[in-house]
């Protein structure tokens, strides 16, 4: 009974009935009442002469009473559902802090404007692709009970979003990053150190992981890559590094704002694969190179596969009464019935 009703229930914002056993009996009672009402003789005057009746505006078949009965049945059935107790079952989010703490570090330096990525058949910047892939990854992990933070870097690094389980807000935040938002250069060391700082908020996490995505080489900031790697290793933050972009080729750049806005430009940016590999090796992570844009999503899928701790999430659900849509429907039916049977259709007592 409950199974068959589920699509209908969910259309009205409920997931189950608290007293499903009541529904058939209440529906049966409604049906009996309806049949009894139909057997009642209509309160009308029998005309003996049809032509006169037709001339006076009588119809052979009057829709109004049928409609009134149908509306009454609708109201009764909706009320029957209300009495059976429609509830919405929320799956309560897992108590936070027992999954992984993930810090996603995204390069937003000027070179991320390179137009060598492809997204849904369109030529886009590297950053657009990275935003898309990282957002999907973040949202998925947050939904599974992990906490995710975002660090963005260019000439300097900043925390765009501290650790959170709110995947929707996190990915909304991610879409606001633009190339050059933190300066044009690449402060790899600072970014990594900041990621370690952000990852260290909780003692209860099952593990701490940072994923560093970049297309350049360290050329700014006060923290060296080596010092940052040592910091990560000391704090037991595993760092996976992802190099993005075609190395050793000139690529067309998107026109940026300000000084970068003049005409077509080709630039060459070499990603420092050795440094990234060293970071990964020093912290127990892995280094990935996504030369082509189609490689980036598989890289994050692989990271997702690598980072699978055993999770203890007890099932948590919470029920909420959801009678309102049904009550509103019943009320609408009743008002319409009143209108039809008492106002629009003529009647004599």
């Amino acid at each position: 009974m409950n199974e068959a009703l589920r699509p209908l229930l969910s259309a009205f914002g409920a997931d189950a009935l608290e007293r499903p056993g009541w529904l058939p009996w209440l529906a049966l009672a409604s049906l009996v009442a309806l049949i009894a009402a139909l057997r009642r003789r209509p309160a009308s005057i029998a005309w003996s002469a049809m032509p006169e009746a037709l001339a006076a505006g009588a119809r052979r078949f009057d829709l109004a009473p049928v409609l009134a009965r149908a509306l009454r049945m609708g109201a009764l059935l909706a009320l029957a559902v209300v009495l059976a107790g429609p509830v919405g079952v929320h799956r309560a989010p897992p108590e936070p802090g027992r999954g992984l703490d993930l810090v996603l570090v995204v390069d937003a330096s000027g070179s991320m404007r390179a137009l060598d990525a492809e997204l849904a058949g369109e030529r886009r910047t590297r950053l657009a692709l990275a935003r898309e892939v990282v957002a999907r990854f973040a949202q998925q992990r947050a939904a599974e009970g992990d906490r995710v933070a975002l660090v963005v870097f260019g000439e300097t690094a900043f925390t765009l979003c501290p650790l959170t389980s709110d995947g929707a807000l996190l990915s909304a935040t991610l879409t606001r990053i633009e190339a050059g938002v933190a300066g044009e250069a690449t402060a790899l060391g600072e970014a990594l150190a900041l990621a370690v700082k952000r990852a260290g908020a909780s003692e209860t996490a099952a593990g701490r992981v940072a994923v560093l995505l970049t297309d350049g080489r360290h050329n700014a900031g006060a923290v060296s890559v080596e010092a940052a790697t040592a910091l990560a290793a000391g704090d037991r933050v595993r760092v996976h590094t992802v190099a993005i972009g075609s190395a050793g080729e000139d690529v067309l750049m998107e026109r940026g704002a300000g000084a970068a806005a003049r005409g077509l430009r080709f630039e060459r940016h070499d990603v420092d694969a050795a440094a990234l590999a060293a970071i990964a090796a020093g912290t127990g992570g892995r280094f990935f190179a996504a030369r082509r844009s189609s490689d980036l999503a598989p890289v994050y899928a692989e990271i997702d596969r690598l980072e699978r701790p055993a999770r203890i999430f007890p099932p948590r659900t919470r029920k909420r009464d959801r009678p309102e849509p049904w009550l509103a429907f019943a009320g609408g039916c009743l008002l319409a019935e009143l209108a039809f049977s008492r106002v629009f259709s003529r009647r004599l007592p």
Partner: protein
Amino acid sequence: MSGVAHPEWLVPAAWALLGAMFAVGVARRRAARRLARLMGGEPALSTAARDAALLLALAALLAALIGPRGGERERRVEASGIDLVLVVDVSHSMDASDTPPSRLARARRAADELLTQLAPGDRVALAAFASRGVLLTPLSPDHEALRALLGGLDTELITPRGSALAQGVRAALGAFEAGSERPRVLLVLSDGEDSERGRDLPLAELARAEVRVLAAAFGSEEGAMLSDHGAPLSDASGRAVVTRRTLEPLERLAAATAGEVFRSDAFGALEMGLLARSLHRDAGRTGGLVVRSERTVQVWPFAALAFALLLLEGLPVPRLPRTGVRAALATTALLLLAAGPLTQEAALRLQQAGLARLERGDSDGAVRALQAAALVTRDPALAALAYYHLGVAQLDAGRLEEARTAFFDALALAPEDAQARFDLEWTLAALQRRPPPAPPDEAPSAPREKPAPRPAPIANREPTPGERRESPPSPAPLGAEERQRLLDRLPDDPSRALRLHARGSAGETAPHTGGPAW
């Protein structure tokens, strides 16, 4: 405000009822006139009872829809930290220096101090409002990061200028997680100046989301002038604008949600201890149980009345129904009456079957039977017993988490059950004793299980030093002092992040889509 679940439907419902009564009344007069013309007399209307029944049914239905509250239900939930959203007023009036250096600086300082006093399990989000409200960060346990972000709050953050408290509260509501049991608190840090004077505050939404609103009011009643590029800010007629602390909107928010308003003293300081205690009012000790009482909405009696009236109105009252119908009615009534005892019986039988299986050592079978027993019965005592036995069966099967859930359920139904409480505590202790699942890497250089070979998704991945695991070059770990120095030296410019967040359009204040967020 707190009397009904949906105060916003009161007026439409009243109009619907009045309209229906008027229409029925007019229809009755018309019918009576028509009959009088036909019969030439003044007959009595025999349908008065039917009309009255219909209108009464409509009234009951509308009452159920409005959701009158009555009675309280106690719910036991696992204690956890609070979910707090700091809503900071960044309107121009917060620049006023009646609590030096400025109201906003005082608010920032208070928020900063508060963040240091929170428990580790508390989660905090940051929202700000001026002409519109913006949720700046999602709920996060990282209080340090939020303290850093506070420094980036200034009155230039949100343009255009304005002071829309309601929008700030709405934006903040977007931070709360659907279905979460954690106590929800909003802390508004403001001078209370609101362009709408607190008229459009989302009080019903706050009540539905079970959010308490605390407010910290900064500024003074005497007020202060505002500076506009060095000169006093003046209005259209050239008079200097004086901004004053206005408690009224904040007090409305607090009163509607069982919150409190804390006023800063003449120097802009707050009673931080009281504030922190009030914030944690609903949070229990971590690991224990907290009793939450919630007011129940009485839909059922009204819906039942409406159903009965609609049913009876359709029945031909003057003449008794024929035998067949009468028999059907009698059967229905009997079956309805019997449904209760029948399920009771089934629950008892299931429970006995479960206990028998448990004794035989078939704990999985016992779990299935006892789950069914708990679900089938409507008698709370019986259900509590079933849940208790279910917990024992789960323990027998070695499933600690499930056992804990079952004991929780048992206690929620029968809070006085000492045996269930003891078993729950034992289970919780056992859960804590059990080592958490080992993180994949205990030490950075520890050898890890090689991932199973699988078709490489990455076509051009090179073998890298990271994968040559034989001799990973372990960097020398930093000393504690060196580490701290490095972390302290890190620049983390808060204004960059905040600018990015604040730039989101007004439509982004509620990023949760698809139904209400709680």
